[in-house]
């Protein structure tokens, strides 16, 4: 049983995705129950897998009994175990939340919605687990196709945004495929472990270089690395809130994972850094993205759109860590993948709560009544916002801290400055909202000024929506204070010794 864990995780999700339409015939409620049970089960498997990997080392699973490098293998190493647990944990919480918000926003589409959710997670988990470059492409497309579908469920403009996402996403995937083709031509292998031994002999071949650049570009598109982010803001804004709550924290992170896998593990880190200067280019793109995303986020008047631009900036932090190409940088990037997934998850869930209760997420229509009507959602928002700003001991501070340390280590002072300015800009766009929600400018005297709870009581969302929101925001505090447990226990073991400063 334990040997089969790498394959059981995606299979559980896939089977659940296929059962959902059948279960939906019995009743709409069943669709959610099956989906939730499926994710929960695979999360349990992933946690056990991670525990096994940390205790005994990497697990490899040859699909269909074909031994690699001929056959396809699934690999559960510390990096993929970390990502799997992250994806499924966030997925579980978002799905718990989605039960009510789907019923509120998309009452007639709950069965296909949950099916798509599970397909999306199947794709994501597959990307993370596979040990084969072409198989990765297939899972990438499974996840993306489900993502296009989810992005199209939303308001009336959503299909247009989803179509644009589809076009650009397909371009990204095609570039990736072309890159894989070139590398395959030169090495004759698609297996990642095999490639690590074969590639060092052919890194000076032009096709391998071009192939690598094409792969990095394609994945950069999927990751929405500035300036390849054009599909992202509309997609996140127009999609329904449960869709965006699932896509925003995870979609771009999985692409970031692929980039890390390629740049640091499959190819030698020195290849992209010293030979091709892809790392340098990435650092500059990341820095531009942080500034650009943050400035545009300040300019937005709609919450989800603001969060989307903020995502563009946060992707920049991750890309920066990868681009720095040192052990500390990679730790910072991985920690930021985790932290940002949790923060953005919490923020998008709050956006979902607001949309359910208010019917909109326009910033200028928010006012201080929310403070009393939705105290818990707003408290979760405050915590997540402060974490985004980077107030210790919340989690967001620490990933920035490692990134600052990594940048200083390499004398990248521009990077230090941009990381810090990015924090200030995020303070600008979050405190703007907190001001609206918690303060009432004088002259606006609708109501008493004495501290009494208003009549009518709270209009807070019910616990199935509130619990995931609060769990995510409380975990920001826990992740922050216990960050070294994660860093020493998991992340440091991920960093390969080929990396500068690695063990």
């Amino acid at each position: 049983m334990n040997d089969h864990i790498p394959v059981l995780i995606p299979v559980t999700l896939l089977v659940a995705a296929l059962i959902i339409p059948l279960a939906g015939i019995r009743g709409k409620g069943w669709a959610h129950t099956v989906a939730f049970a499926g994710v929960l089960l695979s999360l349990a498997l992933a946690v056990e897998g991670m525990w096994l990997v940390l205790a005994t080392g990497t697990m490899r699973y040859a699909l269909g009994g074909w031994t690699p490098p001929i056959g396809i293998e699934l690999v559960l190493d510390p990096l993929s175990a970390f990502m799997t647990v992250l994806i499924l944990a966030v997925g579980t919480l978002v799905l718990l939340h989605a039960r009510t918000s789907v019923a509120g926003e998309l009452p007639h589409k709950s069965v296909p919605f949950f099916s798509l959710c599970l397909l999306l997670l199947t794709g994501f988990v597959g990307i993370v687990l596979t040990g084969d470059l072409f198989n990765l492409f297939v899972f990438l497309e499974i996840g993306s196709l489900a993502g296009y579908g989810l992005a199209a469920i939303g308001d009336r403009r959503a299909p247009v945004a989803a179509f644009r996402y589809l076009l650009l996403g397909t371009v990204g995937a095609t570039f990736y495929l072309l890159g894989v083709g070139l590398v395959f031509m030169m090495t004759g292998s698609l297996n990642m472990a095999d490639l690590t031994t074969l590639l060092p002999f052919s890194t000076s071949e032009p096709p391998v270089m071009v192939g690598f650049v094409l792969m990095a570009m394609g994945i950069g598109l999927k990751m929405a690395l500035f300036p390849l982010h054009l599909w992202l803001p509309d997609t996140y804004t127009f999609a329904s809130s449960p869709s965006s709550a699932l896509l925003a924290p995870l979609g771009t992170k999985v692409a970031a994972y692929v980039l890390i896998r390629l740049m640091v593990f499959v190819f030698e880190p020195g290849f992209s850094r010293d030979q091709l200067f892809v790392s340098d280019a990435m650092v500059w793109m990341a820095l531009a993205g942080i500034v650009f995303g943050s400035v545009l986020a300040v300019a937005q008047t709609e919450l989800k759109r603001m969060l989307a631009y903020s995502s563009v900036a946060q992707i920049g932090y991750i890309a920066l860590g990868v681009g720095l190409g040192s052990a500390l940088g990679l730790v910072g990037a991985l920690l930021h993948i985790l932290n940002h997934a949790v923060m953005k998850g919490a923020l998008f869930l709050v956006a979902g709560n607001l949309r359910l209760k208010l019917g909109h997420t326009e910033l200028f229509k928010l006012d201080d009544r929310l403070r009393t009507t939705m105290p818990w959602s707003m408290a979760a928002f405050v915590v997540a916002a402060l974490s985004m700003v980077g107030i210790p001991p919340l989690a967001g501070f620490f990933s920035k801290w490692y990134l600052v340390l990594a940048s200083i280590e390499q004398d990248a002072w521009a990077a230090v400055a941009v990381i810090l300015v990015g924090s200030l800009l995020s303070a600008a766009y979050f405190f703007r909202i907190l001001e609206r929600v918690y303060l009432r400018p004088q002259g606006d005297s609708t109501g008493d000024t004495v501290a009494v709870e208003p009549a009518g009581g709270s209009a807070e969302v019910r616990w199935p929506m509130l619990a995931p929101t609060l769990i995510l925001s409380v975990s920001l505090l826990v992740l922050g204070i216990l960050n070294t447990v994660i860093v020493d226990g998991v992340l440091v073991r991920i960093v390969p010794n080929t990396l500068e400063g690695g063990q």
Partner: protein
Amino acid sequence: MIETLQGLYAYWFITALLLLGLYGMLFKRSLMKKLIAMTILQSSVILFFVVSGTKWGGTVPIVDPIIGTDDPTKYISPLPHTLMLTAIVVGVATVGVAFSLLIIIYRRFHTLDEELLLERMKE
């Protein structure tokens, strides 16, 4: 130089196809034409794999008693072609999703022209 060009003419054709696809996706106003350009782009990569797998004088990878197994270079590697079967399936699925999106868009906005669409989305 000329020899290289001649020897690799298939690849130059593929590159032209790839650029054609990209051009269409970027500069055509109609969403349908963008989609067609996208399939051209995908096809160019599929062709690339197929071409890279061919070999003059090679044969299908089924052991032929006449050729024997002494010289494996006489067989074509089957992998690129099988990979492309999968890629084609993926491509078809993508086009299917794209078509359904286009149908929804057309029903809602009664146009597939990008600029008109942007105007009508603001309403």
